[in-house]
């Protein structure tokens, strides 16, 4: 249960980190909070040549509201976002989902960006990013680009970050879900990996977005008209569940996962309609 040997680099500036990344390329794994990567290192599921530690970069520790978006720096911990005064107003869905990410002790070190980069198929923050229409901000020495959740997360534990890039922030549109937002997770114990996690938000123009993680390799989102009848909604969710299929593992069967989606989604819809 000890990691294989690796070189360790702790950057003091982002520029320094980007230079090293460009030089060492995929010989480096980037570590921020290390709450997923640390376990994978200990179990030797990964054995990188080197680790680039970005956890002390002050440049990546900001939560900023800019142009109607909330930009969360890559070194911001899940606890720091949970304690951020603007969370409930700007990101009501994240406020609902974040307490379900790991435990108090892992949220204290684990980062928001790290969870999204790790991309576990059942996790909550990638679901939030996909559901809310968020983006991931990537930097190289030369410039930066922004990818939508769908373009960033390519599959299970796989993302589109190139080997000279560093994810510097994740960005959520502010206020999505202010008109209605609901989240539900089913897990063996609170804090365990989700069997499924389901979210529903009402968008600005009234449309409804339903998102689910734990049913496919990446979070999946379905958009429906705001005035949809209950019966039509149930039909749409039924078709959605069959499209995603779900998978069978030690925790739950595919059939159980589909059933959870079918049963929980209408509850979330009536929750947000009651609030409206």
């Amino acid at each position: 249960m000890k990691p294989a040997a690796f070189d360790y680099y702790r950057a003091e500036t982002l520029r320094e980190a980007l230079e090293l990344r460009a030089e060492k390329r995929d010989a480096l794994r980037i570590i921020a909070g290390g709450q997923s990567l640390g376990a994978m290192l200990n179990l030797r599921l990964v054995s990188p040549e080197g680790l680039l530690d970005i956890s002390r970069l002050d440049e990546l520790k900001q939560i900023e509201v800019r142009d109607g978006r909330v930009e969360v720096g890559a070194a911001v911990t899940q606890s720091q976002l949970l304690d951020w005064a603007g969370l409930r107003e700007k990101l009501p869905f994240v406020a609902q989902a974040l307490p379900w990410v790991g435990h108090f002790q892992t949220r204290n070190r684990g980062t928001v960006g790290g969870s999204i980069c790790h991309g576990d198929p059942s996790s909550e923050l990638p679901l939030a990013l996909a559901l809310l229409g968020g983006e991931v901000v990537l930097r190289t020495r030369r410039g930066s680009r922004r990818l939508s959740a769908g373009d960033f997360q390519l599959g299970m534990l796989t993302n589109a970050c190139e080997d000279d890039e560093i994810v510097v922030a994740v960005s959520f549109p502010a206020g999505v879900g202010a008109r209605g937002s609901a989240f539900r997770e089913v897990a063996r114990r609170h804090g365990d990996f989700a069997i499924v996690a389901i979210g529903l938000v009402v968008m600005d123009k009234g449309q409804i977005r339903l998102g689910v993680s734990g049913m496919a390799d990446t979070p999946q989102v379905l958009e429906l008209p705001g005035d949809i009848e209950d019966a039509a909604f149930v039909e749409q969710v039924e078709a959605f569940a069959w499209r995603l299929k779900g998978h069978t593992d030690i925790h739950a069967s595919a059939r159980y996962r589909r059933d959870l989606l079918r049963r929980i989604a209408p509850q979330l819809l009536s929750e947000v309609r009651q609030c409206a």
Partner: protein
Amino acid sequence: MRVASKTELVQVGFTLNGKPVTGHAEPRMLLSDFLRQVIGATGTHVGCEHGVCGCCTLRIDGVAQRSCLVLAVQAEGLDVQTVEGISDREDAMSVLQEAFRKHHALQCGFCTPGILMSFVDFMERVPDPTEEQLRDTLSGHICRCTGYAGIMAAVIEAAETLRAARGSTDA
């Protein structure tokens, strides 16, 4: 840039319970192992070594976290607090520790240091916790012999004692 190559034994120093400590470690050495094997501070226990059981929980710059998911070199220059440092006095236990003794909140004691460290941090940050919040914080730990009822009784009483103590100083 702090650079340490894989086979190199680098000097790592930080503050442990208010006093400076230093030792040598490979970059891959976990903070939990460094404390126990290099520094000789064995109050921090090592259970699952992949962040699940919570035994190795300690505070870095005041924040409770798993020391098996932190490298020793990552703690360089920071303020580390372990179970050895939670009582103000050498010969007396803290309010939380007293409550654990009173309510039989431990049998073998393996998971206890981690649980104590989580609640020291949590109760400082949330001075007026609900039972649900305390339960949620405990859910980050696994105890395989005592059962959680005694631990819950202890942390509920400790929270009340601390609240009352604050009340009397406020007045």
